């Protein structure tokens, strides 16, 4: 039997490394080396791993290993139990490969900039970053919905930890708000999951779909609908869609720039992972797609209009990140293979671009310790190269060719027109323009207008590692923008399997 051990390593390695880093308290040099090595390995593993599935504990379905079934009565071997998955199963496919690769890349650059910007890398910060990456990888890989829930909780705690460790003013308050809201959403998500378990008798998504599609349970039963509603509610919390958009953007703004870059990647990929599961389970129900599109529209409109009226640039980016999630949701909600591919492609692009923007604007925080746009100005003369990179990141987010979001947004608009909803396309174009305007307003006030007299620019130079990260993000954006087939080809199979 072929065991794809590397699939499990994608989750186990960051956890092990995180725990190990915690043991090495105060040994800064060793911590730096180990963190960097782990972070380099993280994006490489998914590229080396063959596609397939990993069964924890070797518990394959009885049908695949008849020796396990010896001696069992006909009650079990004669029924569908024979095909069911007994243990936790991780599934690894080309789409997950791309997403985990991008997640690993963002983790690498978050760790890389953190290690170089901070003088004392010892402490819990790297631990929390690796823990978060491990749990989001697990959420992406897991085919077991309860396993997903456990990692959902770990990811929430890791995110809270990243906010607590940032040391920004009022971060404790935001962390407490986030965790209190999470304590409502988490148990209710679990309630939805166990209602599914109660109806289908399973926690494995593949088996649940089997039970639903083959008429073993009534797909229109009220319990199933409430389970769906509760899972959707948990999904809103995990991804920061309304009504959680205010707290999510606050969380982004209270983390350090590399932390926010990673946090938004967590949100994006958790949203995609749980969204895919919702679509896989409930696509027979036409209202699911309508609800996903509706929620995404609200997220886009509220996120982007709120971004316009903010004055703190981290908050602007936070709200823009939430607004961009709406594009992904619309892609998923359209329900066609092309639409879902476009949504997934947009997710990959958004994770990269928003990380790019957070780390890019983070240089301002590094140079001035101020995040209020009203007090900033004239930063163009301080470091024109970084300003240019940030400008390119903003152009990428707005969807300017030849950068990557152009391709995905174009695909999304085409998909919405193909599905007979051209209005969605129009709204997406309109909001892209407003996004660009919001970004340019922030960019103008920070970089281009004359420098206020009170503004003091610190005398520290921006670490080269930060500039390198920005350049690499730009290269990724350009590559995906010029050759979108790299991404879409690997995402297509997943999307086609969902329809």
């Amino acid at each position, binding site marked *: 039997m072929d065991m794809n051990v590397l699939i499990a390593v994608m989750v186990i390695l960051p956890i092990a490394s995180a725990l190990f880093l915690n043991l090495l308290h105060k040994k800064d040099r060793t911590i730096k080396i180990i963190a960097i090595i782990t972070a380099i390995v993280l994006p490489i593993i998914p590229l080396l791993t063959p596609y397939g599935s990993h069964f924890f504990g070797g518990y394959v379905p009885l049908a695949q290993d008849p020796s396990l079934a010896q001696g069992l009565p006909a009650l079990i071997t004669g029924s569908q139990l024979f095909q069911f998955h007994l243990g936790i199963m991780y599934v690894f496919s080309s789409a997950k490969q791309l997403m985990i690769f991008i997640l690993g890349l963002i983790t690498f650059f978050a760790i890389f900039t953190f290690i170089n910007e901070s003088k004392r890398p010892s402490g819990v910060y790297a631990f929390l970053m690796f823990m978060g990456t491990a749990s989001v990888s697990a959420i992406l890989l897991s085919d077991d919905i309860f396993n997903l829930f456990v990692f959902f909780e770990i990811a929430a705690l890791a995110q809270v930890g990243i906010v607590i460790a940032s040391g920004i003013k009022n971060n404790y308050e935001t962390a407490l708000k986030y965790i209190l809201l999470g304590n409502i959403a988490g148990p209710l998500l679990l309630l939805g999951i166990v209602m599914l378990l109660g109806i289908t008798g399973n926690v494995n998504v593949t088996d649940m779909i089997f039970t639903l599609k083959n008429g073993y349970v009534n797909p229109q039963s009220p319990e199933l609908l409430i389970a769906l509603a509760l899972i959707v509610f948990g999904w809103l919390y995990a991804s920061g869609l309304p009504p959680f958009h205010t707290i999510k953007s606050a969380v982004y703004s209270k983390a350090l720039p590399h932390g926010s870059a990673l946090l938004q990647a967590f949100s994006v990929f958790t949203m995609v992972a749980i969204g895919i599961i919702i679509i896989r389970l409930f696509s027979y129900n036409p209202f699911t797609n309508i609800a996903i599109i509706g929620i995404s529209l609200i997220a*886009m409109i*509220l996120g982007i209009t709120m971004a316009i*009226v903010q004055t703190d640039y981290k908050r602007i980016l936070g709200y823009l990140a939430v607004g961009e999630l709406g594009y992904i949701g619309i892609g998923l909600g359209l329900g066609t293979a092309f639409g879902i591919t476009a949504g997934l492609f947009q997710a990959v692009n958004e994770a990269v671009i928003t990380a790019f923007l957070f780390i890019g604007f983070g240089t301002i925080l590094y140079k001035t310790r101020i995040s209020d746009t009203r007090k900033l100005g004239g930063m163009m003369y301080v470091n024109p190269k970084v300003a240019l990179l940030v400008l390119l990141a903003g152009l990428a987010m707005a969807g300017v060719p030849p950068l990557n979001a152009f391709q995905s947004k174009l695909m999304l608009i085409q998909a919405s027109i193909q599905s007979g909803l051209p209005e969605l396309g129009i709204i997406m174009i309109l909001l892209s323009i407003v996004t660009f305007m919001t970004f340019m307003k922030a960019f103008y006030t920070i970089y281009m207008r004359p420098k206020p007299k009170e503004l003091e620019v610190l005398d520290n130079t921006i670490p080269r590692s930060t500039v390198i990260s920005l350049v690499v993000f730009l290269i990724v954006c350009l590559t995906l923008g010029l050759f979108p087939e790299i991404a879409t080809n690997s995402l297509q199979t997943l999307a086609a399997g969902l329809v």
Partner: protein
Amino acid sequence: MSFYDVILNKIRKIQEKAGEDEPVTNVTASTMLTAELTLIASVLIAVVMVRLIHPVLMIIMVAAILIIVFTAMPIMPRLRREQNDDLNNMMFYVVVALGVIVALFYWGNLNV
């Protein structure tokens, strides 16, 4: 008095009522106005999708929203105040959203 001035005055009035000491500059007023227009435009376009359910319903809803918009303008300052960082406020919207989602999924599947 142009339309812009009318809206500027209204925004100023709302901010005074809220007790915000922040001065209403041209920049804040124009950002509010942009947000306002974006909001109205996107909501109006989104409502056009109701045509899939029934064209007449769409016309009624578009007209209703237009009337609401022109009587309740400016919406954005109020909307911004609703989406603040107060925990009790957020908790309220979260629980309301939970109720709405459960009700919608339950009702929606029986009627769509």
